[in-house]
């Protein structure tokens, strides 16, 4: 489509607010982050220190562990949470009796503050009075009677990532919504061919929501790259920095007035995010059937 000369003015006028806001609240902060990452800015004064912040960060075990942990979060979300959400979405897509109740129950955690969920699970995992240990003891695992799930280097990460996997409601609803748009004709044809429910799920529903499934994986990776609330409230990166993640690490740097180094960590996080997103986009390219 050709844009006429007199339309250009209007075009610019209409997109100007978006461009201005984008620059003000996205480009400028990122530039600021980038520039200050080369300084020892402490909130009051700043001096140029070159690449010192970056070299110090990569020499710190806790920072490298934060990156590794973030990748664990992303990986488990992509490989477990989203596929689990897909399975539940496929089951609910049958519209069996009571499916709306299940859908609501699974989605409820999404409308509860993640801080509240974190506090709830911290209490569940408590070594002295937690429900998890009580139940394990009740079913015969008495070795776990006083196990400190979040305070043990071997179980802290697993407990933290493990419980978060239960929260599949968000992705489940996205995929369920997509199934609603699939034409009944496909299923009618499959019924005539004598396909079982499993075959219909596997050969019709799943392929038709593939693009949404991939979108969910990308969203899950983004969400988990910026994981903060659960880790901060339940372990604060401990014990012994074993559950450290990037945003909590950045938060810690900022709270001790090392804003320059915190910003350098922020730049690294943006770079990791960009690399992950580009890789995923390349990896998960899919055609749309509908």
């Amino acid at each position, binding site marked *: 489509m050709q844009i006429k000369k007199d339309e250009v003015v209007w075009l610019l006028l209409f997109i100007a607010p978006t461009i201005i806001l984008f620059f003000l609240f996205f480009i400028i902060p990122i530039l600021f982050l980038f520039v200050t990452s080369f300084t020892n800015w*402490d*909130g*009051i*004064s700043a001096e140029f220190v070159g690449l010192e912040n970056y070299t110090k960060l990569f020499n*710190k075990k*806790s920072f490298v562990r934060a990156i590794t942990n973030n990748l664990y979060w992303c990986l488990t979300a992509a490989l477990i949470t989203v596929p689990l959400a897909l399975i539940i979405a496929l089951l609910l897509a049958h519209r069996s009796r009571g499916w709306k109740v299940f859908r609501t129950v699974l989605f409820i955690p999404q409308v509860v503050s993640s801080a509240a969920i974190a506090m709830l699970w911290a209490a569940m995992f*408590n*070594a*002295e009075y937690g429900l998890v240990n009580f139940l394990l003891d009740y079913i015969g695992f008495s070795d776990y009677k*006083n*196990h*400190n799930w*979040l*305070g*043990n*280097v071997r179980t*802290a990460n697993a407990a933290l990532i493990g419980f978060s996997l239960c929260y599949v409601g968000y992705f489940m609803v996205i995929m369920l919504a997509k199934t609603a748009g699939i034409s009944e004709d496909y299923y009618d044809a499959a019924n005539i061919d004598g396909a079982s429910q499993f075959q219909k799920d596997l050969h019709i529903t799943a392929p038709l929501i593939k693009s949404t499934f991939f979108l969910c994986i990308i969203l899950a990776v983004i969400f988990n790259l910026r994981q903060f609330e659960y880790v901060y409230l339940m*372990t*604060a*990166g*401990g*014990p*012994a*920095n074993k559950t450290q993640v990037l945003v909590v690490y950045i938060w*810690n740097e*900022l*709270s*001790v*007035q*090392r*804003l320059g180094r915190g910003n350098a960590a922020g730049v690294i996080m943006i770079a990791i995010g960009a690399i992950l997103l580009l890789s995923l986009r390349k990896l998960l390219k899919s055609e749309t059937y509908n």
Partner: protein
Amino acid sequence: MIKSILKLFSVVFISTSLTVISTVASAEITINWPSIWVGKDSKSTVISELVDEFNAANSGSIKVVIEEQTDYDIYAQKLTAQISTGDLPDIFTVGADLLDILHRSGKAMDLAPHVASDSHWSNVYPDGALESNMMGGQLTNLPYELFVTPVTYNKKLLKAAGYDEFPATYDEFFKMCEAVTATGKVCTSQMTAKNAWTSMLWFSQALASAGGPNVYDRGLDDPAFVKAFEVMEKMYQYTTSDAVGADAGVSGGHFLNERTAVFMNGPWFIARYTSDGIPGLHENIGVAPAPMLTGGEGAPGGYVGGKQSSLAAGKQSDPAKEEAVVKFLKWLTTPENVARLSYSSGAMFIVKADLPSDMDRLFIEMNEQKGNAPYVAKTFMNGMGSLPIVSEFPQALSALALGEVTPEGAVEMLKDAE
């Protein structure tokens, strides 16, 4: 025509009246105070009363509004950010670790001219107390709450373990812990979450005992740091199973519910032995100086404590508001009001106040022991003078407690944080 004139006149009259009313209304100065002395804090009741009384006495001219800050650590982090951005509250409390950056920010109100122009503060503060807080000729904070952190122990639980007196050395202390464990109780309350406060206090005691009160001047290479971590390593053998990852609420809760026999915190916790402890707990509590390390440079009876919080104010462009803020700060620092705060909470203050003769027994004991102490050493948090090191302490402590690092390794973690 006349109708139109009357309409116009009415509109002008109403708008003028509204303007006058709003001007009169806005003449009241509002002072915002994000306060940590709210909720469960032992000072909350009297602070609330003081604010109400001040507002009543200055009705129509000044109104102090408390913004409740229920989490001390989150408050400290928020304040740190506010100092950096220069967006300081009208009035606030500030810990010793943030005083330097507060001064350097140039955004805090300089109270020196007000101290000089009025005898109030020179009368209520001990000699030299304000001068020692001045930096570059400016006074950006008023020292307010003090603290000491003796051991508080449950006499009933210790007696059941065969102990009538609190041990004087760590060797005896750990023997006592064995005996307490044998009775089915847990010896100490520990924690590693947030700033690991109560465990940090134990560490500070062990540090002063090993290296003397000036240990911080010699830095992390001093062997006293390793010795203090050795004490902590052993301490975690006699604590609750949830100590790693526990916060002050959990750590204090165990002692309040008689699950643990020994606890360390400041005098502000005294009121909670009665309000939140199991019935009869307060009567069973004893106070003692921390044990000593055999061969250490500290002295028996040595205490750990210092400045807990200071009062400060954000710089004001409006002289009337500045005066209002100063007026409220004076209100908070009158000897009568400080005595009320101290009486109700058990907290200690630097302001000279005539405390009632029926002050809490534990407060009196702490005060006496402090008076007899050969020194009051700084806590690790205040003495190190480095936010990154202090911030890394909980991680180093949890690594030590879980056997991930040796005491030497824990010191290395602190060095690495810098």
